């Protein structure tokens, strides 16, 4: 992806946005945003009044109507500009992505060559080194290094291989070495790259639930302001100081929440864009919003909280068994085990006892599965197994043996030190325990503290037993843990939390994570993960960094805070606008003598120059504040994990109180300029 343009306002984007502001004047587009539609309607009507007056030669006050019309048009254009600039950034990224979309031919396994765009799900293609991978798929044969920089922006190549959780490849990435046989997993036009382009362009943008609710509130307030302004005409007639239509329209536009109305869609687009900047692809705006609401975060222990590789540290035989014998059997059980843990056992046995890897005779490997939770080898009628304590005890019992009580003590001993005990058995005989050590990643404690301050509870998910899990949980500083987790218990945990009304987020990459990713409110799949996982989640993290969720939550919260802050600001502004416009309208109402100021002149606390300049200043402020706030709308109001009440107080002070005070100052300053210009 065209990585992170350094500034929000690059020259090209601004120029393009200005160009794009004009076609957006189309009333059919404006109708989607009732507030801005009213502003545009006001612009049309005031322009009409201006033209009519011009034709009739009605020159008194003509300039005033004209200037009001111009500023109302500018208000609409500023709103369009805000939206266009937010979209522009996405468009730039989309065109960079489009350039990588492959237009070449793909070679099917039978040698036929077909255009890449016509590949169907289930087709099997062969990709050689140096070629672009033509479609999303699963590697069914081969290992290769892939340059994924087109998608992730990360230049270092990654290894992709058949089988396991690293088998997914993305169309548009480049194979650097070797040869891969790939089964296509997506229909044409629905590839990851296609979806990514649509997302960053905002083509699929739908309003999120909170956005809809806010729109309703804004529309309600707008209708009420229309009533307040429309009724002012009869009220003014009763008071013998009629108000012109132009002035009423100016007042209406000043009062309705144009600031938030103008920036609302820009805030939403920019929120998605901020995620893309962090290399996260959200499949919907709804998911981004939901991430701000997350109450519980499920984290896999391995790879997220601890360094992926547990290392074998010692062999602990039960009495009557030589340590060397245990090491030998453990090594046998691990020879076919390509996991880091398995390899570390082989290495430890070699270091301690000089046991070499050797050829096995007639044998059959038993792979680890999440349900049996053990692995091993069957050779010469002997069953060798290693695995979790309870799983092995069950195995031994099935073989007609019984685990010695001592075994439990060994298992417990390892677990109490935070290690992972791996029981090794031969047939119905438990030989002892291998102590696997877990290493917690640095800086995790601080991260979890931060989450706690945000109000998010972290739950560590692990296949380890309770005691082991508890030690690591405490070391890492998580709030809770789920030990001896299987896909079923994980799913049950998510459903249980959801039934209590909590929002659950989780990260995952394996195919067995897919159901839980789909069930979670926010499911972040790692880009390195299987395509099943990526399909099931509602976000994909291109950096495959499980702690990225913290940033995602921040973006989700920022999105809401920015909307709330600008809504408050918008409404708070109205106080000053009243004090600018109402005394201007009714300066002479119920005056004691003709030509003298009436009682309401006392409300002119800003001491604005004259009525026309006062009204104009309020309208100009109302228009200028939109581009002024565009950077804030695009960057978002900063989220601080200082607790909800403190955060609210802070934002109320800045956007509520500040929103009340700022326009008094700004309108006064604008009036000084406008009034002097008029005077000259």
């Amino acid at each position: 992806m065209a990585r992170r343009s350094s500034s929000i306002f690059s020259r090209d984007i601004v120029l393009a946005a200005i160009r794009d502001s004009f076609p957006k004047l189309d009333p059919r587009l404006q109708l989607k945003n009732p507030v801005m539609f009213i502003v545009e309607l006001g612009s049309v009507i005031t322009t009409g009044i201006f033209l009519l007056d011009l034709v009739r030669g009605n020159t008194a006050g003509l300039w005033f109507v004209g200037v009001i019309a111009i500023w109302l048009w500018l208000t609409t254009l500023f709103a369009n500009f805000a939206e266009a600039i937010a979209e522009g950034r996405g468009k730039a990224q989309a065109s960079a992505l489009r350039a990588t979309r492959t237009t070449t031919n793909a070679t099917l396994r039978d040698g036929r060559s077909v255009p890449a765009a016509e590949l169907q799900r289930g087709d099997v293609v062969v990709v050689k080194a140096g070629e672009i991978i033509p479609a999303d798929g699963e590697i069914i044969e081969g290992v290769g290094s892939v340059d994924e920089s087109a998608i992730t922006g990360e230049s270092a190549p990654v290894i992709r291989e058949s089988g396991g959780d690293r088998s997914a490849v993305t169309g548009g990435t480049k194979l650097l070495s070797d040869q891969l046989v790939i089964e296509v997993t997506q229909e044409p036009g629905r590839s990851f790259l296609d979806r990514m382009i649509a997302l960053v362009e905002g083509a699929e943008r739908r309003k999120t639930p909170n956005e809809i609710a806010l729109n309703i509130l804004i529309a309600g307030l707008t209708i009420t302001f229309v009533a307040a302004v429309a009724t002012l005409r009869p009220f003014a007639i009763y008071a013998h100081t009629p108000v012109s239509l132009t002035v009423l329209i100016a007042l209406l536009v000043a009062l309705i929440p144009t600031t938030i109305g103008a920036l609302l869609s820009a805030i939403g687009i920019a929120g998605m864009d901020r995620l893309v900047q962090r290399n996260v692809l959200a499949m919907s705006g709804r998911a981004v919003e939901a991430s701000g609401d997350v109450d519980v975060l499920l984290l896999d222990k391995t790879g997220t909280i601890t360094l992926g590789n547990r290392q074998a540290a010692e062999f602990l035989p039960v009495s009557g068994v030589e340590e060397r014998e245990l090491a030998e059997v453990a090594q046998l059980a691990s020879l076919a085990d390509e996991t880091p843990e398995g390899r570390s056992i082989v290495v430890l046995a070699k270091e301690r006892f000089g046991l070499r890897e050797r050829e096995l005779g007639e044998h059959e490997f038993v792979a680890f599965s999440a349900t049996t939770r053990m692995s091993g080898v069957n050779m010469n009628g002997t069953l060798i197994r290693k695995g979790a304590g309870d799983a092995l005890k069950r195995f031994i019992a099935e073989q007609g043996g019984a685990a010695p009580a001592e075994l439990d003590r060994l298992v417990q001993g390892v677990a109490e030190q935070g290690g992972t005990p791996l029981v090794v058995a031969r047939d119905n005989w438990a030989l002892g325990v291998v102590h696997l050590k877990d290493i917690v990643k640095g800086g995790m404690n601080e991260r979890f503290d931060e989450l706690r301050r945000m109000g998010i509870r972290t739950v560590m998910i692990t296949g380890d037993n309770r005691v082991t899990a508890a030690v690591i949980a405490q070391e890492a500083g998580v709030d809770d843990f789920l030990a001896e987790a299987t896909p079923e218990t994980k799913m049950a945990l998510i459903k249980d939390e959801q039934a209590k009304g909590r929002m659950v987020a989780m990260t995952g990459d394996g195919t067995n994570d897919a159901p839980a990713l789909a069930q979670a409110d926010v499911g972040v799949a790692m880009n390195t993960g299987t395509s099943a996982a990526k399909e099931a989640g509602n976000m994909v993290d291109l950096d495959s960094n499980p702690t990225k969720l913290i940033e995602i939550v921040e973006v989700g919260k920022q999105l809401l805070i920015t909307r709330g802050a600008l809504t408050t600001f918008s409404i708070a502004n109205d106080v000053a606008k009243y004090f600018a416009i109402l005394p201007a309208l009714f300066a002479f109402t119920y005056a004691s003598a003709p030509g003298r100021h009436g009682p309401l002149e006392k409300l002119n606390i800003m001491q604005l120059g004259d009525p026309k300049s006062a009204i104009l200043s309020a309208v100009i402020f109302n228009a200028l504040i939109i581009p002024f706030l565009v950077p804030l709308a695009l960057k978002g109001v900063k989220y601080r994990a200082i607790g909800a009440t403190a955060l609210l107080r802070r934002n109320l002070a800045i956007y509520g109180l500040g929103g009340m005070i700022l326009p008094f100052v700004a309108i006064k300053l604008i009036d000084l300029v406008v009034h002097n210009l008029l005077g000259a």
Partner: protein
Amino acid sequence: MSGNGITQILIYAIVLIAVAYPLGIYMARVFESRRVHVTEGWFYRLVRTSPEREQDWKGYAKSVLLFSLLASVVVYVIQRLQGHLFLNPDHLKAVPSHIALNTAASFVTNTNWQFYGGEYTMSYFSQMAALASQQYISAGVGIAVLAAVIRGFSRRSSSELGNFWVDLYRAIVYVLLPLSLILAVILVWQGVPQTFSGHATAKTLEGAAQTIARGPVALMIAIKQLGTNGGGFYNSNSAVPFENPNGLTNFLELISILLIPAAQVFMFGKMVLARRHAWMVFAAMFAVFALAIGVSLPAEQHGSQVLRASGVNITQGHGQSGGNMSDKEVRFGIANSALWATATTDASNGSVNAGHDALTAFGGGAALVNIFFGEVIFGGVGSGLYGMLFYILIAVFIAGLMVGRTPEYLGKKIGAREIKYAALGALFVPTMVLALTAISVVTKSGLASIYNPGAHGFTEALYAYTSQGNNNGSAFAGYGATSLSASLGTVAMYLGRFVPLIAALALGGALAGKKTAPPSAGTFRTDGGTFAVLLVGVILLTAGLMVFPALTLGPLVEGLAH
């Protein structure tokens, strides 16, 4: 303002809380009770229902509307036929149709706007069977609806809100009747008449014959105060010694105005298991209440420029309250009149012990704004709190956004549907009030209703529609009935009552089905002072911005004139 005045107001606040809190807890028990008393059982058999047969919000709303329509017909017909009915010792004739219709709307909607003088328009039968009975029933409807709405907030995954007939029966029989009987007995003891005899004739000192109207006054006064009705027996309401003989009755009637509206806040707190939150809602209401007194009491004490220029001695002295005593009772003085004016306009009561038309511009403006807030500062019986819930939801929505979480209230997520009903409930009435006032000040027959010229006349018209639209019923006076103003008023009262009422039930219905999530550190807490401040801000800003332009052309332009 005098130390005496402040002391009186403080005593009032303390006594109010001391009585309202236990009453609120009692009311919560009444509406949560699963026990059915024998007499209650008879009533349920009569209307063919039972507490087990609960209604969803639409069913509940349908029952309320049907029942209110029927009640309107009954009230209208009795007034039109009173000349042929019994208990009419003074031989009063049928009430004119536009007045009868307006009065029917007025009493069924708990407004008690009176386009007539009670003692010389209504027979005893009309006063009791049509009006006083509606003072119980309409208040009962309000409490019933509130109970249903609260259930929406407290229940999870349910679509039912309760049974209207059960709630109505319990509100009237277990809450309104006992309270009003107690108050009526005290009032009779203090000299308020309660009789079916016709008017009395007295010989004055000059030897002229004076007819003194009397009747079944005490009971009507009791329910008029307790049920936020406000429609008195006499035209001059609680300024008349027969309605309000002395300081003690004045104090008790004053407590009665806010008693149930304050108690229902505590009832809410108990029913939704959020008592601290309820105290914060109470605090927000009390803050706005105090603010209004803070404007009106000094304004009345200071008096108007005309008054000060007239040479009348308005300085405060021993036994003299000074200030603007125009249209005020010497027995009550400035503090008690300002306190009553604030209470009666904050609660949608509308009874008066002083003439609001003769308040100073700012004092009258404060009363007007109190009503314009939508009768949510304690507000009407039932309607006050469900009206406040609209504002609370808007406040919570804004707050939720600003702390970066989908807004939650009492653990329930607030979405588009809830905001739709809250916005409708909070914003409909102010919009309607402005529209009706606009019609009335530019049409010929509308202008005929206004007695005073200029800004004060405008305030009279604005006050009339604000009062009717918000179902307060307090009259500024100076606004007479024409067929246009009576019809506009009828529209205002019906829509002003039933649009928010239905919005509140719909809100309850939407929330009843929602799960309740436990709060986390990221949840904005509604049981702290920040919430109370925010709530006050939201009320002042939203309602304030709506009314401000109109206010400038009424009380403000009048008050700033010198």
